[in-house]
């Protein structure tokens, strides 16, 4: 960790974004906990309460996503998730080697590009692969009672749907583990978490820095 580089504070995570992130975090963890109880991995809340909480969390998260998608498009923030190949290898190399030797972080975070290329790729995979798996199977699971009316009962079995849903849950669990750990890889151990709480992050001052410190946002 370089202590000599001058640091600049930038406002990366807006108020709605932080609200979204933390409520989503709570809901995802709640759904993992209740989901694996429904799965039969352990017993704590009881099956019935676990099912009820799991369903309630699912609907809450769906509502949250409805707002978030709206927010992403109206603010243009969705562009943050467009994947890029540039510096992808450098990022991987940094996590594998550079981070141990104190090499400089290969990615320079700005308000316009707040996610590093690996992050972008990870979130894209989450959005394009894990989410459809979980939500598709989850909604089918939830609406099992309507399969007959929807003409699905000849095509699907509950076992298939539950298996796919569980597979999605394991993917999400692995993501959460990696995601939580990677929050500690900022310039200090808690820098990323602090940024996600306050919205403000510190980045190394660079020569080509625009210098236009963002105004305190809305």
């Amino acid at each position, binding site marked *: 960790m370089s202590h000599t580089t001058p640091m600049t504070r930038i406002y990366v995570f807006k108020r709605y974004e932080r609200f979204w992130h933390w409520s989503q975090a709570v809901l995802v963890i709640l759904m993992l906990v209740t989901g694996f109880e429904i*799965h039969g991995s352990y017993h704590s809340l009881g099956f019935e309460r676990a099912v009820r909480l799991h369903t309630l969390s699912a609907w809450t998260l769906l509502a949250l996503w409805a707002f978030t998608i709206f927010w992403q498009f109206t603010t243009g923030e969705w562009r943050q998730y467009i994947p890029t190949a540039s510096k992808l290898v450098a990022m991987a190399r940094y996590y594998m080697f550079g981070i141990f030797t104190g090499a400089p972080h290969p990615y320079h975070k700005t308000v316009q590009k707040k996610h590093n290329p690996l992050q972008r790729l990870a979130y894209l995979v989450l959005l394009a692969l894990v989410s459809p798996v979980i939500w598709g199977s989850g909604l089918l699971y939830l609406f099992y*009672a309507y399969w007959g009316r929807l003409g699905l009962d000849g095509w699907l079995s509950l*076992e298939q749907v*539950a298996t796919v849903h*569980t597979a999605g849950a*394991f993917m999400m*669990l692995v993501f959460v583990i990696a995601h939580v*750990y990677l929050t500690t890889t900022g310039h200090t151990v808690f820098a990323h978490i602090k940024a996600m709480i306050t919205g403000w992050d510190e980045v190394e001052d660079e020569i080509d820095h625009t210098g236009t410190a963002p105004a305190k946002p809305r």
Partner: protein
Amino acid sequence: MRHRAIHALFALAVLMAGTAGAVGASGKASTADHSKFEELAGPFDSGPAVTRACLKCHTEASHQIMQTRHWTWDYANPATGQRLGKKTMVNAFCIGDQSNEPFCQSCHIGYGWKDKHFDFSDASRVDCLACHNTGEYTKPFGFAGNPVTVRSEYPPGSGKFVEPIDLAKIAQAVGPTRRDNCGACHYYGGGGDGVKHGDLDSSLNTATHALDVHMDKDGLNFRCSTCHVSDQHAVAGSRIAMTAADPHPALLRGEKSERNPAACQACHGDKPHKEGLLAAERLNAHTDTLACQTCHIPAFARGGVSTKMAWDWSQAGQLSAEGKPFQKKDDHGHVIYDSKKGAFVHGQNVTPAYQWFDGRVTYTLLNDTIDPTTRVPINVFHGEPGAPNARIWPVKVFHGRQPYDTERKTLLVPNVAVPGDTSFWYNFDWSRALAAGAEATGAPFSGKYDFVDTQMLWPITHMVAPKEKAVACHECHADGGRLAGIEGVYLPGRDRSPWLDRLGWLAALAALLGVSLHAIARILTHLRKED
């Protein structure tokens, strides 16, 4: 909601009760006071004398009931082609009726069926009082279904006497069937209160809400006939040709229907649960695979009366040092051994077993070959796991041990209960008892016998608990739960893909291990730099 259900039920009861002007569960009074009828002034010296009086007004009653199984004890099952009915069926309790008629026919709704020469066409032999008395009517064992009108010694020469009853008084007080009428036989099958069914015993006469929500004496106070409605004396509902699934809405008043009015769905419909939007009809979806009873009857024999769970006839016949038959009782006063009958196991608050059932039942009959090396099924409830016409049902599994012909590999009916020198209860000699039984049934008997383990199933459908006492989700949605071993259905909490679990947890573990090692490496390299 509750009111609507009650109305629907009452409408149904009135609808199906036909011309009898029956009094429903509401207890409305009849328009006729039978004590004012000259025909019933009496005195009556026999049952048939009462029946002849009844038939003067109820001209069709005997003819109607003579078409039903209550009279014939004989039934050709259209679904399986088997000839069934109490007359010839074998069970794992008292085993069989034939050769024991004077005793067993106390529960026949007729007078005088003492052997195979009984006249089934004699209308005066129909026993109206068995189902329509309002108390004090009894048909003691040994009198072939006749009430006793003169003081009689029974068994002959025993010095024990049966006191007579006043048939005129009983006839003048008749009414629509009550629980205790039906219960006089249906509670006491197998020789005692609650013995056979497990979900039918005398506790239902004064049922609490906790025991049965429909028969609750302070609540709905249903009679048996509220659900088992009858038309022209044909009573709906049967355990040997059951309605296992009824995927239809509730019946409406006036609706023409061939459906069984005794099924839960006749009043409640097949999607009866009112659920919140979030539940997405989760409980109602269960009715595609579960019988109502599966969740709503969490245990049977809940009314304080025990039911027999096992009966070992091979133990019968042990005598005391003085050569006398004896009984042994457990701490609760239940007979666990009787020289006349053998050894028993009792149960109360018994959790049912569960199995797929589509309503088809087949029986092992007297001419069927058995495999004595395994537990012989007296009856089999059929149903393919997951089939659309089958549901998972709660059942009582009863274990018997009873005589069979070791040469012919067939079940045997012993002559047990009728005083005489062939009867097991009077001489404790199996050979003579089984020979006499075989003679009555007409089935051949090699003379060689032994005892074989048997099993008999009983559908659990009465003693419906309050909804808050219904079987909770986790009792099935768990490993080793109530439905452990039930195939044909994917049960979250019980079923999972083992390889996916292994792979998933391995991935999670690998992720944890990976980040831990990464973290340790960071700490170590950081410390080295600090140095």
